[in-house]
């Protein structure tokens, strides 16, 4: 087929820059500025996609975001991007474009057998067939069905593209830079308001380039260009082209997607725009009329046909029939004819048309067929002809029932000399390769619907317009239902002024009064002479032969018959209809289909269309790549990485680092060739034998100060702190208000009115919030201040039989013997000359100290400890060994403090003070929290084989395991015992010591015997730490 590129024309293309890209492997010629769709049309390609369910061939249907058919995949491998709208994506040299939902290609699709099965694919088919008696079969059929029905497939490789996020702030955000939006931005900008003008297209003007009009005495295009120059010159105005606003959220926050157009490294940018006022000038899009075979390649919206011809010099076809019900489409046809496109016939259900519209077309040879409708398109891979029937013989679904049908039959066209009068009662057959269709225009109300009340029906345009705003927006122009350019542009100017004054800027009255004169081809009545018509019901071309399908939603293959079936089955509400048939649920969000669906439903229910209601729009209004919502926050940037002040000391010591929450922590300090197991058992053994040092900087540290600090701690810890002596530390257990264990740690009394409370690493932030909340909301009468000092200190645990000896070499200001510095003592002193806080605490069970110095001093003190203790064989130990040591001692940590354990479950009920009230006390006393059958902390020892954390405790062997009686929370190999040991939560565990159970790990494999023991494996009497 020869190409459809016109000899001249194309405002958006540069004919001097020619290149090729590929579609399904075949080369396609394009000019710079072509979209994928315009290049395919110009090359004569009819089929660009296969349909969702039936795999029917589909062509380009529109020229904008409403495109339901022409979704393609761009690129391959890691940069493969599915579901790209070919009507809006610019073509680029060498671009690899492929059709979707077809194998091997859209031209020859073996999946098209779906067509023969189509009677089985009606609305609700999946529900009916695979849910209910056969529901278990769904899991078997689902993968096959999903492969057959669907959209493009995403790449499985990591996306190499870069995405960004940014914020913007405006007094007035104008969405859409068509005539109304430009006028609004001008008045608001001149008033001095900070204005953002966001436009989805690369340039301003909207559909002005499809008009023949003068604005302010000059051609519309010139006016738009001048307006843009003025706006660009204003410091308070920001122009955002290629930016599609897709979400309107609470508090005047709007979300937009900027297509960065392949310039630079960034693919697209997510904008979060905070706007005090918004002007929604989002325009209108043409809607089709449903008829049999209306999905065949070559059926296209009339305005899209004009857009391809004018903007890209690409004719929609070589022999065109226009089927329309409004004057605007006649004007489009006139302009198309002027551009050199052959208009063979115009079919209109109305009985008369203004001479000024009809005559120029008739003079160019178009057949004018009034009082008729297109009942069917013929052809499979491309339209070959149209079956045209008189209005009186067609069953029509029209809005609100205001077609003047009786008159339509009787009246003859007044253009009788040009129009070929139809044979009464007979169907006409006309050959063509393209049917342009126009059923009127729908305001684009997605954003208004997101941020406002239900849309309001407007009779004269037979469409919904924005409802009552619930946020500070004004809809203007075609988006608000303005029927003419003149009304639209003045609405825009007024909306801009209103928005600016609402934002506190003086928009001068004369600006409000300014009327921009619009002159040009404005020959019709103000309302555009629309005769509402949504559907021509399919009728058999020959008796006994079923009519071709008539599609309402081209993208989801929802037919008019599906909607009638849904109604018949009781899905008569607009929202139910949508969900049952999936009408309007795809990428295009029902832009071209929703209203026709409602009209058919209204017809079935025998009520006016507006009474059926409409569905509510939700964000996003256009498909948004998930990558753009993640922005740069992915991979290593998904969350901040926290490093201890000693981080570089660990790296220098050859530590293997690991992520623990947000923290990077040293896991082990392996010697050359040492395995993880060898390293951590060596480190743990070393601590019990000599002395080790470990980084504990990550613990949460909260300074609690003030005259009521002691009273405050008494209330937030389960145990008592007011009777703690200055210079002493105590283990503290914190409950939530519901009585379960929240966190544990130690609190050190530094002075009468000053404590340092430590938390676990994981809960540091939560504990701080919890305490701040209690201080402000629950106990405002207490004079206490809370300060997080977690990052101010570097913390080093010095543990082992030689810990005291090592520290004594460096500490000044305190004695180190048991009398001067007893267990649980806290001392302020210097270490290596640095001011330090020391506490004699032990997580490891050895005689141990925690040394806190200023964060900046940390690396120096760490190094000093290693140097001065070389003869004592001091060595660092990592997180694994720390775990080993604490499990050997039965100290609980994160895996045990899982938010569902009570103090009683952990054997810590003695810490619940009976002498004072504290947070969580009343609910901790509920009997259920100390029931004997609860999961309780126990130790487990492997009888022979090792087990893993997460294994369940069962009574029986692998063949007959029996139910789970609990699970293992923490596991280590204990060098002290020479066996694998673990902590576990076991039903009634406190009374079950000595029992023999199995650790069952069916998923990862493993089923081995364990013995239930006390969780205190090593030195249960604590003699070592007092040493």
């Amino acid at each position, binding site marked *: 087929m020869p190409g459809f590129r016109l000899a001249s024309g194309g405002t958006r293309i540069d004919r001097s820059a020619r290149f090729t890209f590929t579609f399904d492997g075949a080369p396609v010629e394009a000019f710079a500025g072509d979209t994928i769709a315009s290049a395919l049309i110009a090359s004569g390609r009819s089929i660009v996609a296969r349909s969702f369910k039936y795999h029917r061939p589909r062509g380009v249907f529109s020229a904008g975001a409403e495109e339901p058919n022409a979704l393609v995949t761009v690129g391959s491998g890691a940069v493969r991007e599915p579901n790209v709208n070919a009507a809006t994506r610019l073509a680029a040299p060498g671009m690899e474009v492929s059709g979707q939902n077809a194998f091997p290609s859209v031209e020859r699709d073996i999946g098209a057998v779906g067509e023969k099965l189509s009677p089985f694919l009606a609305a609700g088919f999946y529900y009916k067939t695979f849910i209910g008696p056969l529901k278990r079969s769904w899991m078997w059929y689902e993968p096959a069905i999903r492969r057959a029905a669907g959209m493009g497939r995403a790449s499985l490789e990591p996306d190499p593209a870069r995405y960004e996020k940014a914020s913007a702030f405006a007094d007035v955000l104008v969405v859409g830079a068509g005539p109304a939006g430009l006028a609004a931005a001008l008045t608001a900008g001149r008033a001095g308001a900070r204005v953002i003008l966001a436009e989805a297209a690369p340039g301003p003007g909207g559909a002005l380039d499809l008009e023949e009009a003068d604005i302010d005495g000059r051609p519309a295009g010139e006016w738009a260009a001048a307006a843009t120059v003025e706006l660009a010159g204003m410091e308070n105005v920001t122009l955002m082209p290629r930016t599609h606003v897709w979400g309107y959220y609470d*508090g005047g926050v709007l979300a937009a997607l900027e297509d960065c157009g392949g310039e630079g490294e960034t693919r697209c940018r997510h904008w979060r725009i905070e706007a005090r006022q918004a002007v929604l000038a989002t325009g209108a899009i043409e809607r089709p009329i449903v008829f049999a075979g209306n999905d065949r390649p070559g059926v296209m919206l009339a305005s899209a046909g004009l857009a391809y011809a004018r903007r890209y010099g690409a004719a929609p076809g070589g022999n065109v029939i226009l089927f329309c019900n409004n004057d605007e489409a006649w004007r489009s046809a006139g302009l198309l004819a002027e551009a050199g496109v052959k208009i063979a016939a115009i079919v209109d259900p109305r009985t008369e048309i203004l001479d000024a519209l009809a005559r120029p077309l008739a003079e160019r040879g178009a057949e004018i067929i009034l009082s008729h409708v297109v009942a069917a398109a013929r052809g499979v891979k491309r339209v070959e002809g149209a079956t045209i029937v008189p209005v009186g013989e067609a069953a029509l679904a029209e809005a609100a029932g205001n077609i003047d049908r009786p008159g339509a039959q009787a009246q003859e066209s007044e253009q009788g000399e040009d129009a070929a009068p139809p044979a009464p009662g007979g169907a006409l057959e006309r050959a063509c390769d393209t049917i342009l269709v126009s059923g009127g225009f729908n305001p684009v109300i997605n954003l208004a619907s997101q941020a406002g009340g239900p849309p309001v029906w407007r009779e004269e345009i037979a469409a919904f317009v924005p409802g009552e705003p619930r946020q500070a927006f004004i809809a203007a122009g075609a988006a608000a239902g303005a029927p003419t350019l003149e009304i639209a542009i003045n609405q825009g100017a007024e909306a801009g002024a209103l928005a600016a004054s609402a934002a506190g800027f003086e928009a001068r009255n004369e600006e409000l009064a300014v009327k921009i004169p619009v002159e040009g081809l404005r020959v019709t009545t103000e309302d555009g002479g629309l005769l509402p018509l949504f559907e021509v019901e399919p009728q058999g071309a020959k008796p006994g032969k079923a009519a071709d399908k008539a599609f309402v939603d081209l993208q989801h293959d929802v037919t008019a018959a599906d909607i009638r079936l849904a109604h018949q089955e009781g899905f008569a509400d607009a929202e139910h209809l949508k969900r049952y048939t999936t009408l309007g649920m795809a990428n295009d969000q029902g832009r071209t289909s929703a209203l026709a669906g409602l009209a058919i439903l209204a017809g079935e229910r025998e009520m006016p269309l507006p009474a059926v209601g409409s569905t509510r729009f939700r964000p996003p209004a256009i498909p948004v790549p998930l990558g753009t919502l993640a922005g740069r926050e992915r991979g290593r940037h998904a969350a901040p990485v926290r490093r201890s002040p000693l981080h570089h000391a660990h790296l220098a010591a050859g530590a293997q680092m690991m992520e623990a929450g947000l923290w990077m922590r040293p896991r082990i300090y392996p010697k050359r060739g040492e395995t993880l197991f060898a390293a951590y058992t060596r480190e743990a053994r070393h601590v019990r034998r000599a002395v080790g040092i470990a980084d504990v900087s990550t613990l949460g540290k909260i300074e609690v100060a003030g005259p009521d600090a002691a009273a405050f701690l008494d209330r937030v810890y389960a145990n008592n702190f007011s009777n703690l002596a200055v210079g002493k530390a105590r283990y503290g257990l914190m409950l939530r208000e519901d009585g379960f264990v929240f966190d544990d740690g130690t609190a050190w009394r530094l002075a009468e009115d000053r404590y340092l409370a430590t938390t676990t690493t994981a809960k540091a932030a939560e504990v701080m919030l919890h305490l701040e909340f209690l201080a402000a909301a629950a106990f*405002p009468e207490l004079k206490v201040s809370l300060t997080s000092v977690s990052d101010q200190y570097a913390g080093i645990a010095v543990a082992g039989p030689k810990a005291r000896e090592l520290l004594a070499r460096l500490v000044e200001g305190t004695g180190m013997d048991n009398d001067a510095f007893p267990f649980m003592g806290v001392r302020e002193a210097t270490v290596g000359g640095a001011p330090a806080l020391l506490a004699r605490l032990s997580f490891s069970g050895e005689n141990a100290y925690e040394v806190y110095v200023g964060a900046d001093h940390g690396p120096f003190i760490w190094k000093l400890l290693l140097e001065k203790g070389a003869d004592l064989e001091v060595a660092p130990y990592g997180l694994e060994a720390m775990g080993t040591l604490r499990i050997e001692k039965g100290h609980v940590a994160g895996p045990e403090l899982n938010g569902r354990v009570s103090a009683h479950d952990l054997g810590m009920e003695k810490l619940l003070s009976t002498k004072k009230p504290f947070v969580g*006390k009343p609910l901790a006393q509920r009997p259920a929290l100390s029931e004997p059958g609860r999961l309780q902390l126990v130790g487990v020892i492997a009888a022979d084989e090792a087990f893993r954390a997460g294994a369940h405790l069962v009574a029986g062997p692998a063949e007959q395991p029996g139910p789970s009686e609990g699970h293992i929370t923490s596991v280590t190999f204990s060098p002290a015992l020479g066996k694998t040991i673990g902590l576990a939560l076991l039903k009634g565990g406190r009374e079950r010591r000595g029992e023999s159970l199995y650790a069952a790990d069916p998923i990862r494999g493993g089923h081995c015997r364990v013995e239930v023991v006390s969780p205190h494996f090593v030195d249960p009497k604590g003699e070592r730490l007092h040493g």
Partner: protein
Amino acid sequence: MLIPCPVCGQRDAGEFFYRGDATAARPPLEEEAERPWVEYVYARHNPRGEHLEFWQHAHGCRQLLVVRRNTETHEVFEARLVGPFGEGG
């Protein structure tokens, strides 16, 4: 959603942590009966319309605020400090 922090000014809701229903009255410290605490911890109304909520400006001044807000439209009417720097504190 923006919250007018009395210390920091209009700030994005992302800087704040939601800290629950501010109309739920915490029983007095000495209350030992289970019922009032169960009410306080678990029982919540879910009002449509105007509501008082605790929000903490965790990524700002860290102050705890009571925010008067419409749960349906998310319109924020006011925010005031609670605790030692609030009224009567």
